[in-house]
């Protein structure tokens, strides 16, 4: 199979959520000794971007996002060992710490954001739910993260997002990380009021936001 065809099929596999196809195509790419950076950037990533567009058009909903993100993960799982062996740099758009704020156990939305960021090329460490504010800071420092993403699904736990930014300021770490906030009760106004770097309404918006902020640096 020629390269162009392969890359097109990879994108298609992601868009259609065909996990086996995505994995098989990744194996084929390895067998053909293709440039793996090119395979990811010109093959798979366009697929996940198309998924984003379909979401924006209202055609794709949560199930499709999740299936596609999982396909992406499966393809990457095939490619990664080869990349490590060849000591290729991981094409990471940035490092992200994400979690749901302490006192809150809701995590589906947050899981979706983590999946989509990861599928789009970010390195993501998901701390889970009910995460203490201090743990976000520690993990971000350990990872040397670029972004800290805080999710809160209740109007009460949302207040933790404000406290977090204050804590960052108090420890002199505010400038080291971009803080993004999200969750059902959160909105742009709140993000501005508490001094966050950005607000994203859903997983796709989060990907766009992270990409644009990364470029600003």
């Amino acid at each position, binding site marked *: 199979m020629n390269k162009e065809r392969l890359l097109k099929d990879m994108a298609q596999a992601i868009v259609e959520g065909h996990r086996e196809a995505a994995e098989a195509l990744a194996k084929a790419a390895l067998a053909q000794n293709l440039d793996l950076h090119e395979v990811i950037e010109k093959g798979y990533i366009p697929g996940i971007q198309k998924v984003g567009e379909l979401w924006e058009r*209202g055609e794709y909903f*949560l*199930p499709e996002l999740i299936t596609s993100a999982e396909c992406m993960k499966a393809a990457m799982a095939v490619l990664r060992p080869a990349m490590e062996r060849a000591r290729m740099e991981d094409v990471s758009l940035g490092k992200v710490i994400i979690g749901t704020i302490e006192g*809150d156990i809701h995590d589906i939305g947050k*899981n979706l954001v983590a999946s989509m960021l990861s599928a789009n090329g970010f390195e993501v460490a998901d701390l889970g739910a009910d995460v203490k504010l201090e743990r976000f800071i520690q993990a971000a420092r350990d990872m040397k993260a670029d972004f800290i993403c805080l999710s809160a699904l*209740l109007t*009460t*736990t949302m207040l933790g997002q404000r406290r977090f930014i204050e804590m960052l300021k108090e420890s002199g770490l505010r400038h080291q990380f971009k803080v993004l906030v999200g969750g059902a009760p959160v909105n742009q106004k709140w993000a501005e009021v508490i001094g966050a770097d950005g607000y994203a309404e859903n997983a796709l918006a989060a990907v766009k936001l992270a990409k644009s902020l990364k470029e600003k640096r």
Partner: protein
Amino acid sequence: MSLTLTILPQDRSIQVRKGTILIDALHDADVNLITYCNKTGLCGKCFVDIMKGTPPPPDPREKEFIARKRLGKKSRLACLHRISGDLTVRIPEESQLSLMPVLKRGLRRTLLPDPAVKKVLFALSRPDLASPLSLSEQVQAYFPGLRHKPSPRILEDLAGFMDDPSGEATAALYEDAEILDLEPGDTAEQNFGIAIDLGTTTLVAELVNLNTGKTLDAATALNAQIPFGADVLSRITAVFQDPKKSGALRTAVLVALNTMIEGMLKKRRIATRHVYEVVVAGNTAMNHLFLGAPVKTLAVSPYHAVFSSLPPLSASEAGLLMNPHGKVFIAPNIKSFVGGDIAAGLVAVDLVHQPGNYLFIDLGTNGEIVLKKGRQFMATSTAAGPAFEGMNISCGMLAVPGAVYKAEFRRGLRVMTIGSAAARGVCGTGLIDLIAIFLDRGLLSPQGHIQNREKEIRAGQNVVLLQRDIREVQLAAAAIKTGIRLLLGLHKLTVGELDGIYVAGAFGNYLNIDNSMRLGLLPRLDKKKILFVGNSSLAGAKALLVSRQERARCERLAQTIKHVSLATDATFQKTFIEALEFRAWT
């Protein structure tokens, strides 16, 4: 600086401070607008028309609403703008909160009256010089089983009323052990109580004759806490951020309740003094807000309550309009958000005595589900959201006149509206019918995607469903479906092993079963097994009011029901995501 706000069509003017948000100023003037997005400009339901004065520039989302709803250029969302000059506004009917009709149908059991309050006629004899018995001694001699001596105030009242120290008097006896009141003459027939459904959105009260167990009257009112927040969590947050709001929230609901009570008593010419007991059934959060109890613990994981079961409160502790020595009983909370309304509802349908396996689903904002498997009871709250109450839907509304509550396709789309009024929007049951029809006609994919080019589905001039509306219904239905699936799975039951499903909620009366199953909201099973129970919370409150036995059963049941937290279930996400598809299932 004081400005004048004139409100039409009420033709009222009030003075307001410059900078006050318009919706708050209107609230102060007793004009209640819809606040479903909690005044953040997101639901687009609080539009008013600026008749005099300069309308502030609209924000982008507002402009979108104005275009889509084809409103005038001077329409503005009352929650987004502050008053900066004298203003005259006209309030359109669609923006106002209006009353829901009281459910007249619904499962009612008949119970043998065994109320906690009994009126007993007794005779006082003239004390003689040989043994001048005091009034209290006479009373105690007549009622030897008393656990508490009658309070001085009660005796003083009686003594004050009696011209003749001998004669008839009536005692209001509580649990055969305590005298609530002593009245001159024979008032044994005057024994009344009130059952209250303390709903998040609507309050319902029933006036009951405790001697006969019969309902004499009912009243409905909007829960006056709504301006503080459309859902309980917003109200809890309001208190979280400003503890003083706790008092205001409590006062709001008490005023609403007492106004309803006063109205019913006046109409039936019943003295406040003769209302001896009130039973209140509400969800956990509402119960706490009603008493002004701390709500902080309900706001954060693990969402536990301050109280489940309480002893009967005095009328003054509760703040209700009734005999000041009367008692208020709050139906016990089960666990976390699953509260007394569910416990009462289970008693109303006497689920304990239905042999076999049952589901009890309250299709409201909290979406509580109870599973009975043999003798075990498990409950959970699915936080389904208000889609079934018509909220978060662009043309959604409560089940009030003008709401499309039913739809069918017979040589064309036919819709039925409440009160046969012109269609203004759609309520929960209408939404389900419309979606089922669109699925069948291929206008909507099972994944919830609108198939036509316009990306919207028209069902009438004011009834247009957008893509995002469909998504809201998918999310709400998926929540309920996931709750049912996980509860069944955890207890190794299949849908086929269910003997029945009770469906409660104001929703319940108009719900089309076939369509609900088509969407996957309810599992597919024999239609005869679906039992509508209407307002089970109110029916339960009444059962607790007229029967001590049911009350004791309720307490025991509340304690034995196990609580299941869905969010911490490892399979929750996967099950929920799969449930988003509109598909019948078993």
